[in-house]
């Protein structure tokens, strides 16, 4: 198993995350796309840490990414719930109050 295998898996997961961000209208599903992108980045960090002789700095950075993802998910879901209370929908293309 070379480094390239892990990098290709990470590229596929990253593309799936970007795809989820672009084609899904539900805001919660778009957040799931962001989580996929962060996971792809983490795979790269861990893979490079392993193939450079298990330098643990990569692991520490991956842990910080996980912490940031947790904080981001909490705040973003609070915002989504607030938007739902005000607009009665979380579809990203129906929230167009700024247009009027």
């Amino acid at each position: 198993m070379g480094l390239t295998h892990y990098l290709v898996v990470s590229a596929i997961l990253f593309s799936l995350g970007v795809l989820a961000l672009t084609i899904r209208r539900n805001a919660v599903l778009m957040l799931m796309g962001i989580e996929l992108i962060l996971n792809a980045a983490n795979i790269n960090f861990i893979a490079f840490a392993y193939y450079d002789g298990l330098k643990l700095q990569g692991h520490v950075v991956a842990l910080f990414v996980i912490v940031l993802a947790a904080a981001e998910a909490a705040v973003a879901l609070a915002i989504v719930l607030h938007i739902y209370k005000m607009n009665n929908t979380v579809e990203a293309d129906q929230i167009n109050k700024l247009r009027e």
Partner: protein
Amino acid sequence: MEIAILFYVFAALAVISGFVVVFSRSVIYAAFSLLFTFLGVAGLYVLLNADFVAVAQIMVYIGGILILMVFGVMLTRKATDAEVQAPTMKTIPALIVVGLVMGTLVNVFTSATWPTSGMMPDIEGTTMEIGELLLTTFIMPFELAGILLLAAIMGAAFIARRQE
């Protein structure tokens, strides 16, 4: 040899359930297949000798973020609304663009020669070294992460509270 089989099992688990997250018609199916994506990624971490990060991934992502997502799905659907479907939009142009991006990324990843140290480490347990790094070299980001989590929790509670 067994490592190779395990790698393909975990990678297929992550990628296939990632496809389900993106393309499934039902939001709740997407949320639950995200669980299997996270499990597959955690398995890849174990194969890369990152046991502590794998356990942190399972505990934080599956135990925390995914529960939050499922709550988010359930709280943002009308109780009287029978519709559980979430249609996609502009799928074909997005597929073309994202396919081009993915092709470029895979091409770069496979054609570049990455400078690796060559020696395969065979240590067991990374927890102690990670703890030492967190409290020496990375002490400043560590404390800042604590402050960030406190601010994020308070901000989330403030935003989501019931307005009178």
